[in-house]
C-alpha cells in the first residue's frame, strides 16, 4: 500500500486567527490612567459678608512646618485624625430643626450640630511637605468616605456595594445609561447627608 507523506497544513486561516486575537486584546486592554485626590478650588471673587459660623461647627486642622498636627488646639498623631474627624462630623449635637436623625455620634453640645453645618478647616505652613499634606487630605477624605459608605450600606442594602464602589461604577464610561440613572439619585442623596465641606486657609509663613 502506498503511504503518502502528511499533507501540508493550510496556513491561510492563520491570519484570521491572528487578527481575532489582536481584536480581542484591543478590546480588553485598558490603558492605565493616573489617579489622585480631586479637589475644587474656591473662586477668587470675595463674598461680601461671609456667613457667621459657630465655633463648634468648625474642626480646625493645622499642619506645621515639621509636619506635625494640631487638631482642635491639641497635638494629634495622624493615625487618630480619621476617627476624630468622623466623631466631629457624625456628632449631631443640634436640637430641633438642626437635629441630625441619622448621626450615630455622641451628640456632644460642644461639637458640630449636624453634618451639613460641620466644616473642616485645614491650614498648613509654607514649609509643610507635600507628602504630609496629602496624608492629611487623604485621612479627611477617608472620614467622609467612611461615613458615606456606612449610610449607603444602611439605606440601600439591596445595591450590594458601598458608596465608593457605586460611585466608581457611576463614573465608569462602560456602565450603561440605565444603571447610571438609577445610581445618580442614590449617590446624590448620600452626598447631601454628608456634604464634603473642607475649607483651606492661606498658608502661614514661618518666621
Amino acid at each position, binding site marked *: 500500500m502506498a503511504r503518502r*507523506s502528511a499533507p501540508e497544513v493550510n496556513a491561510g486561516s492563520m*491570519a484570521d486567527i491572528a487578527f481575532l486575537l489582536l481584536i480581542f486584546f484591543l478590546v480588553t486592554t485598558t490603558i*492605565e490612567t493616573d489617579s*489622585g485626590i480631586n479637589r475644587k478650588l474656591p473662586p*477668587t471673587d470675595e463674598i461680601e459678608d461671609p456667613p457667621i459660623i459657630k465655633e463648634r461647627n468648625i474642626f480646625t486642622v493645622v499642619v506645621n512646618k515639621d509636619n506635625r498636627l494640631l487638631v482642635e488646639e491639641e497635638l494629634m498623631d495622624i493615625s487618630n485624625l480619621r476617627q476624630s474627624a468622623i466623631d466631629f462630623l457624625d456628632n449631631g449635637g443640634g436640637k430641633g430643626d438642626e437635629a441630625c436623625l441619622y448621626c450615630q455620634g455622641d451628640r456632644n453640645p460642644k461639637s458640630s450640630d449636624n453634618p451639613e453645618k460641620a466644616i473642616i478647616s485645614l491650614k498648613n505652613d509654607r514649609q509643610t*511637605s507635600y*507628602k504630609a499634606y496629602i496624608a492629611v487630605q487623604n485621612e479627611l477624605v477617608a472620614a467622609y468616605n467612611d461615613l458615606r459608605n456606612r449610610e449607603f450600606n444602611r439605606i440601600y442594602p439591596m445595591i450590594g456595594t458601598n458608596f465608593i464602589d457605586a460611585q466608581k461604577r457611576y463614573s465608569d464610561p462602560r456602565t450603561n445609561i440605565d444603571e447610571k440613572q438609577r445610581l445618580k439619585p442614590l449617590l446624590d442623596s448620600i452626598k447631601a447627608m454628608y456634604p464634603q465641606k473642607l475649607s483651606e486657609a492661606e498658608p502661614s509663613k514661618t518666621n
Partner: protein
Amino acid sequence: MSKFKKNKKGLPAISTASLPDIVFMLLFFFMVATVMRDSTLMVKNTLPAADQVQKLDKKDRVMYIYAGKPSMRYQEKYGSQARIQLNDKFATVSDVAAFVLAERASKRQELQNVLTTALKVDGETNMGLISDIKQELRKVNALKINYTTRVGDYTQNMD
C-alpha cells in the same frame, strides 16, 4: 527498497508563512498597550501615596503641571530648589496662568470648561510652592484640580 526509504523521510517542514502575522499581532498589541509619556521629566517626581483616590478624567481633558527638585543632571544648571515644569521646560509661578490659558485654547470648545489640572508634585516639595500654583490657577479660573498620587497607605508619607 525505495518504498522503505520514503517512510523514513518524516513530516514536511511546518509553513512559516504565518510568522509575519504573529509578529504584527504582537507589534500592534504593544503599540496599543504602551503609555507614552508626553513630556520628559526634568524634575524628581516621587508622588506621595494615598488610598482615597479617584480616577483621573480622560487624557484630553487633563493638563499636567509637574513640580519638584530638578533631577540630578539639571541640578548643576538650575540648583536644587524645587521648580515647576510645564511641558518640556522649567517655569516660574508667573508662567502657570499663561500655560493654563494656552492649554485651554488648544482644546476643543466643549472641553474647555471641564478641564482638570493634574498636579504631579514630588513628595518632598514644600507646600508654599503648591499654594502659589493654586493661587495662579484660581486667577485663571482653573478650579478643578487633582493631586495625582500613587495608590498606597498614607503612612508611607510620614517617614
